[in-house]
């Protein structure tokens, strides 16, 4: 279970607060959507969950499975099951995709006390997971995400997620830059990972992603706080009314 308690966050180098007291509980087995206008702090929340050090937590706590993760480095969080699918996946020139995936998968396995995957085991796993996401394994021989289209990058994120077997998945604007077909593939990939053991936080500006990844709960984040929570119908309501009621123009 993910528990966010009274979370206050600012940018490390500045004084301006971004998150001003977030309270949120996401039990295992549930998918919660976080919606909100641009600049409301959605991506900040995603980064803080993953442990990016550009942000400073000034108050409150984040508990994952009952333990605070605030003091944990990003790689330790990943080992404990946290995964962030980036809104803008990074390109790493010079590092082959397969090398990257294998280094990551085995680093996480080591920390979880599991045996490292041998090359044949790893290749078998990659081929299977990549196949499910319509990713050509040849593409993974190229440097990580270099020259990939927006859709390919997002699929590559979900492939990483599938290989690292996280228990808390945070998806930051996974629908941005995707056409309808790619959206379907990515959503199917995410849905395949839904399980009673996994909690998911899906951050999105638009409702359309939630037609494919149907959430258990929807929260509206604006001005650094959760303003409203409800069922999946809240997303449809927002699609009609926009975020105006929260004092922001729909962007």
């Amino acid at each position, binding site marked *: 279970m993910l528990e966010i308690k009274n979370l206050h966050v600012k940018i490390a180098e500045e004084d301006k607060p971004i998150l001003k007291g977030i309270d949120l509980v996401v039990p295992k087995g549930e998918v919660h959507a976080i919606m909100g206008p641009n600049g409301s702090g959605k991506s900040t929340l995603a980064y803080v969950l993953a442990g990016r050090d550009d942000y400073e937590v000034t108050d409150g706590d984040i508990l994952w499975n009952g333990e605070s993760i605030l003091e944990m480095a990003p*790689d330790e*969080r990943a*080992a404990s099951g946290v995964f962030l699918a980036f809104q803008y996946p990074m390109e790493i020139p010079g590092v082959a995709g397969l090398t990257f995936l294998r280094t*990551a998968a085995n680093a996480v396995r080591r920390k979880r006390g599991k045996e490292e995957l041998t090359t044949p085991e790893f290749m078998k796993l990659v081929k299977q997971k990549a196949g499910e996401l319509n990713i050509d394994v040849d593409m993974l021989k190229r440097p990580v995400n270099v020259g990939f289209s927006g859709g390919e990058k997002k699929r590559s994120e979900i492939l990483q997620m599938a290989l690292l077997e996280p228990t808390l998945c945070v998806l930051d604007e996974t629908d941005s830059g995707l056409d309808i077909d790619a959206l379907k593939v990515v959503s199917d990939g995410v849905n395949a990972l839904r399980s009673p053991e996994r909690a998911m936080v899906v951050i999105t500006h638009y409702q359309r992603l939630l037609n494919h990844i149907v959430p258990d709960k929807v929260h509206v984040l604006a001005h650094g706080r959760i303003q409203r929570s409800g069922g999946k119908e809240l997303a449809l309501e927002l699609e009609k009314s926009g975020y105006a009621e929260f004092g922001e123009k729909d962007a």
Partner: protein
Amino acid sequence: MTVAVMKTKAEQSFAEGFSEVQEKLPGSTAVRAIREEAAQRFAELGLPHRRIEEWKYTDLRNQVKDALPPRSGEKVAMTIADVIVALGPLAHVDAHRVVFVNGSHRPELSSPGGLAGVNIQSLASALETAEGGNAAIAGIASQHSDAVMALNTAYMSDGAVVQVEAGAALDKPLMLVHIRAGKAPCFAAVRNVIEVGAKASARIVEAFVSLPGAAGDGQINTVTQVNVGEEAVVTHVKVAADAGEGVTHLSNWMSRIAKSAEYRGFQLTQGVNLARNQIRIDFDGEDAKLDLSGVFLGRGSDHIDTTLVVDHAVPSCESRELFKGVLDGNARGIFQGKIIVQQAAQKTDGKQMSQALLLSENAEFDSKPELEIFADDVVCGHGATCAELDKDLMFYCQSRGIPAEIAKVLLIESFIGEAVDQIDDEAIGEAVMAFARGWLS
């Protein structure tokens, strides 16, 4: 008015050392005279210092404290197994090896027999004949003789004189292995002279390595002359990867590229406390191609200088330079790249890039690109960057469970990989990467 400049301890020792060893150095009477002349020239010039523009960043007068004695006459007991240990990752490259220890040829440690299409002679024996002496001394090296070159001419004890026959295609790389060994610190001056005939193809590797247990201090002064014949294709790789704490590596590459030839050069420098890699390239015929790249890795107080001059004297040639440095601790990297495009050299296509990754606040990179263009129909460009490890990429890797230390190595490898990829021989490229990886971990 003449001003008497005080000689430094090192300058005095190099001068006095020469009179002590000159009788033991190889060479005909003519060679001896040239050596004496060079020693005299060195005595006049002294070690280069920061007031000389090209040496602004590397003040040898200040940085070379003393001269170590040459020990080319003393034989350190070694086996082929030792050579393999000293070569490290390069031992995995299937090559024809010619081995030198502390500046002396060691046939018993070298590959037996010959390599088809090549005539290889030791410089020491070549210098005994008028013809060989001419090849080694009267070649291009004498035309650009600075104090470091003069020191080499005076002291050079051995090296390889290589002639690749016209039209020959070498089936494996030729590896010239220079090993520093023995507990006594020493100075070694070596010279390799390589002539590649027309339409021939060759891969040549120069390795400057040390045997575990070798003295921590050492001084190497090396000159390599390469003549690339018309339509020849040459890959030339130098790996200077020492394990000592106080090793000085002074290197000069002098390469001449004939018409329609292709010359691909690469230099790796690591584990060297003070390095000056000078590269001089002369285009001698039209439609020739140069691809020069390198990686330098420094930490502690390492000082690694790459200074190159590419002279486009003829039209329609292409030159590419890509040098990448990783600097940690108080290390300092220097890149000076001068591209001359003479008036006749129309249709020249030249591009240069130097990049450094600074891993600490005290590391420093100085880059000085210089384009001297006298022709009007050319495409030339240069660039230089200096940056820290990309924080966003570090976070991305870490968020995938990769610990910071491993992520760092992965990103550094990817940074230098672009330069290492310029080596068009997979086995050599892998060995170079393995050296770098060893340095990183």
